[in-house]
């Protein structure tokens, strides 16, 4: 009898812990909504379409249009750059590198994910920026007249969404690559050997057996990478020359993102200002929940 009671108590303790985890997620939503509503009521502009951010004036004017634009553009650019490299890296580690080296190489890629984002920000600001500016200048000179997003109307390149996108790409690459690698390693050896036995070259075996098998994994890993890029704060806050406008000229300084805006405006914000930041954070929370929810539904992620 006492054994049963003890068993029950232990079971309930663990179940309660699991319950706390659920409650926390619900509480995050509830408290953000609770603090966002008064600020949204005070807003005299349309929260969804307004680009400027002046929540602390007598007649508060603020909206997320510019933030949403900058967040989406920098994250999509990051995804565009990171996914091909991540898939290539995963293929290399899983099926090209010598077996004995594969683990060590995978470990090195994982270390890339261990670098704190503030260090990426510092590195981006004092090292990568000048090099990216050269690249942006070159792209503008050669393709700027055809592809207007590459053209800088100010002739300067500095803290642009282009730079932010590149640093974000570096930051999400190891996350995407680690998941894709796991999926590639699960491809049945027999499938690959069958392709090779039929006379396929190595690349054809990859294309016929490995890549189709890994497609859902690649999609889901990309979504998780996207979720990470959307919420990345500190590196972007250090890199962007913030401006609250919607400009397709991504190589010129300017732009703003949800997360970086919260970090940069928090200290100077008054009551409504903080509420406004919380409202924008709520939007970010919902977007990342959706992106992650969809990604998780496709495959469960191996832990890093």
């Amino acid at each position, binding site marked *: 009898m006492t054994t049963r009671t003890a068993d029950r108590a232990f079971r309930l303790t663990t179940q309660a812990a699991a319950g706390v985890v659920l409650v926390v997620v619900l509480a995050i939503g509830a408290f953000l909504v609770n603090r966002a509503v008064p600020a949204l009521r005070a807003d005299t502009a349309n929260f969804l379409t307004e680009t400027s951010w002046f929540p602390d004036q007598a007649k508060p004017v603020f909206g997320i249009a510019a933030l949403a634009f900058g967040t989406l553009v920098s994250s999509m650019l990051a995804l565009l750059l990171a996914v091909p490299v991540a898939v290539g890296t995963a293929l290399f580690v899983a099926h090209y590198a010598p077996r004995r080296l594969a683990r060590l190489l995978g*470990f090195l890629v994982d270390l890339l994910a261990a670098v704190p984002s503030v260090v990426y920000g510092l590195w981006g600001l004092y090292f990568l920026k000048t090099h990216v500016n050269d690249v942006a200048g070159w792209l503008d000179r050669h393709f700027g007249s055809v592809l207007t997003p590459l053209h800088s109307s100010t002739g300067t390149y500095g803290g642009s969404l282009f730079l932010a996108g590149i640093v974000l790409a570096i930051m999400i690459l190891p996350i995407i690559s680690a998941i894709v690698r796991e999926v590639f390693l699960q491809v049945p050896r027999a499938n690959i050997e069958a392709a090779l036995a039929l006379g396929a070259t190595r690349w054809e075996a990859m294309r016929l057996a490995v890549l189709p098998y890994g497609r859902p994994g690649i999609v889901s890993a990309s979504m998780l990478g996207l979720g990470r890029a959307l919420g990345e704060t500190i590196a972007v806050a250090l890199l962007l020359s913030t401006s609250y406008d919607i400009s397709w000229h991504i190589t010129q300084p300017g732009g703003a993102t949800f997360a970086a805006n919260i970090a940069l405006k928090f200290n100077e914000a008054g009551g409504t200002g903080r509420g406004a930041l919380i409202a924008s954070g709520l939007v970010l929370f919902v977007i990342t929940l959706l992106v992650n929810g969809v990604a998780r539904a496709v495959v469960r992620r191996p832990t890093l």
Partner: protein
Amino acid sequence: MRRRKLTNRVMGVLIAVTFVLALLPLFSVLWLTVKNGSKRFDAEFLTHSMKGIGATDAAGGAYHAIVGTLEQVGLATLMAVPLALLTAVYLVEYGGISRFAKIVSYVVDVMTGVPSIVAGLFVFAFWILALHQPFSGFAGALALTILMVPIVVRGCEEMLRLVPSELREASYALGIPRWKTILRIVLPTALPGLVTAIMLGVARITGETAPLLLTVFGADAINNDPFHGPQSGLPLFVFDQAARPNQVAVDRAWAGALTLILIVMALNVVARLAVRRRAAH
């Protein structure tokens, strides 16, 4: 045939190139952090705070930030580990295929994707605005806990699932109750793996800046008390110094980044090597 062989060659080279491309930033970041960070990575840096340091003074250090980080991460670990471990035990040992377990498992997955700044905003809205608590190291630890729990749950879950069910069954067959089997057999068997999962969680939150910004607030002086008043933290220190327009501040930022990288990399390497060694056995 020649065309297929050529394609094969070209793709092989391209794939190798993507790998090199992926690793270039790692080596660049590590090299520049060591090179630029070693300029100010000295005894004064490790033993002095920024109190009373003028804008262009080359002196000062990150002692206050190091103390802050140790306390915040320590408190977060104390809160997150029991919660995460119990949740993992529930999911593996009791949850089974029940609806509740499925929901918890899914929520934990989704939680790993919550942006760190949102965790900070939540603690700010809940702890500081709603409960009228001050900015403090503890508030930062709360935010870090939210970020650490899902990582540790996932890691511990995986390690617990590796424990062979024969061990559990043998224990039941001897008449040992379930809770005792878990505490005496399952957890000790998985212990090295659990330690690895916890270390990776610690490494992950040690580098978080965004949540601290909204909860710990940042300070230039030493504050040893994590429960009262603003503190600093290493990532926060780097962020603050990096944004200052003086070379002396930027040098301090690099030295702070070096300190941070040394801590985080040490945790990662030790944790992952431990897993590797066991896997080899």
